[in-house]
């Protein structure tokens, strides 16, 4: 699979310059209905970097992602995209900065795979404008990358769990933004598809995309991420290269599980004490 990379996206309105990172979130806090769900979360993303966010259920990963993507107003802290405060960016400009693939998909009736991907691209169009050849190419590229060729005319509500998740990714890809934020895009995917998505993400990184991947599979995170951010109880508690951060101690402390990343013939695998025989 070769990266047609930048062809997918158009040049963003706010071109990143060397100094400011693509995304910088500091001390983000979110309160829902009186309880503080996100207490203090930081994130920094450069172009050409894949950051994985890991952490237990309910740690606030999805909430954090929604906040720094501008989908939910934080109650505190700052989020800057290429130095610009996210609350001042709107509509298509925001859509061209980042694509967000949510954790829970809505499965509408009467929508085909092709339609859904085209809708993802529509963020690029001015009202009334119709798809250009470049747009159509981006749609075809996203379809191919998500390995959905031949499924274009299937209705979303007849897809298997994994197929649906690939469509979600394709929708995000068609958007063609330089940053892709994906909230557990591989939860329902089989091993092969997960590997394909991993390759795809690395390809995108190679083409200077910035990627935030929220994921539970620590082995996968370790394999694809340049940097891992660990969240726990509403806070980002560690950040750094996978091998450093995902130590046996950290895993034991945060996830309460006896597990270790072990490398074998250059491939790392997570060896977990599943049945707590300790």
């Amino acid at each position, binding site marked *: 699979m070769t990266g047609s990379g930048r062809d997918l996206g158009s040049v963003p309105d706010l071109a990143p310059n060397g100094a400011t990172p693509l995304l910088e979130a500091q001390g983000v806090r979110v309160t829902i209905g009186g309880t503080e769900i996100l207490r203090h979360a930081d994130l920094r993303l450069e172009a050409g970097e894949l950051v994985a966010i890991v952490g237990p259920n309910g740690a606030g990963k999805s909430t954090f992602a929604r906040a720094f993507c501008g989908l939910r107003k934080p109650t505190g802290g700052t989020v800057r995209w290429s130095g610009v405060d996210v609350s001042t960016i*709107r509509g298509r400009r925001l859509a061209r900065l980042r694509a967000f693939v*949510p954790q829970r998909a809505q499965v509408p*009736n*009467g929508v085909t795979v092709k339609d859904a991907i085209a*809708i993802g691209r529509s963020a690029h169009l001015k009202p009334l404008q119709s798809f250009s050849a470049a747009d159509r190419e981006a749609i075809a590229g996203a379809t191919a990358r998500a390995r959905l060729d031949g499924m274009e005319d299937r209705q979303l509500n007849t897809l298997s769990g994994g197929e649906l998740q690939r469509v979600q990714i394709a929708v995000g890809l068609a958007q063609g933004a330089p940053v892709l934020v994906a909230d557990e895009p591989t939860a329902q995917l089989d091993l092969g598809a997960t590997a394909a998505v991993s390759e795809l993400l690395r390809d995108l990184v190679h083409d200077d995309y910035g990627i935030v991947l929220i994921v539970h599979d620590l082995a996968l995170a370790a394999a694809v991420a340049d940097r891992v951010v660990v969240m726990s109880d509403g806070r980002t508690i560690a950040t750094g290269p996978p091998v450093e951060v995902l130590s046996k101690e950290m895993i034991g402390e945060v996830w309460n599980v006896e597990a270790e990343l072990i490398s074998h013939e250059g491939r790392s695998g997570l060896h977990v004490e599943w049945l707590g025989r300790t």
Partner: protein
Amino acid sequence: MVALLAAVGASLALGAVKIPLGEVIDILTGKDAPGPATQIVEVLRLPRTVEAILVGAALGVAGAILQGALANPLASPDVIGVTGGAGFGAMLIILLRPEDIGLLPVSALVFGLVAAAMVFSIGFSGASGGGVGRVILAGIAIASMFAAGTAALIAAYPDRVPSGIFFLVGGLTSDGWTDLEIIWPYFAVGFVLAVFLVRPLDRLMLGDDVAASLGSRPRAIRLTAAVAAAILASAAAAIAGLVAFIGLVIPHIVRLAGGTNNHTFVIPVSALGGATLLVAADTLARTVRAPIEMPVGPFMVLLGVPVFLWLLRRVV
């Protein structure tokens, strides 16, 4: 499209008084001398056909937009209070101030919009404001209020109710361009908004989060869609009374026939379908028992429901 043109042709050519098609064309192209036939075509049939097209298209679009924005197949202009408000506005004039009957379209329009505005002010406020559930509940509350108002008026003036029938069951009238002259800007605004809503509504189908990711604001889309639908439905009610069928059924027919929920398809085709159905049904209503005019509703059902049931049996 062909069906619409055929329906329009029939609508202009047929009526209680027989006028040969050739003469109709002559009249329309200004070749014919003035006379009763000219008057019938120019003052009665032409404006009525234009009204049918506009009202049918407006209701089809309003229904399609609302069902999309609220993600509910039962959504129709009823749901945002327009029907209840317009009905109340009309009854206010017909029953309480029959001497000001000329104000009927304006009153229906204004109360339709007021009711919708009340629904929006409740439905789009608060923490979960703009969520589908809240908008629907607000609509139910306000629609009930106006329905109660109408019931109270009717109870107070039971003898005057026969005058209100044609508004309540809906239908077009032959009365020249007067109403359209007041109402057309609302149709214009509504249709323009609808055009701009096509893509945002498509995005909304994939869920609020995806829509937001694509740069849309779900609450704003829902509000705009509801406003556009309210304007279109109020304008339609001002001209043709309460024609419920089109707004509710045409979008479903279009979806079933097209096999897609894409608004790029559903909204324009609903406009076409609504216009065609209303023009055709109105032509039938005027001619079947001429010179007596029948209400248009039963004919819409006669034409629309068999198609609907047939599609339902085949597609789903």
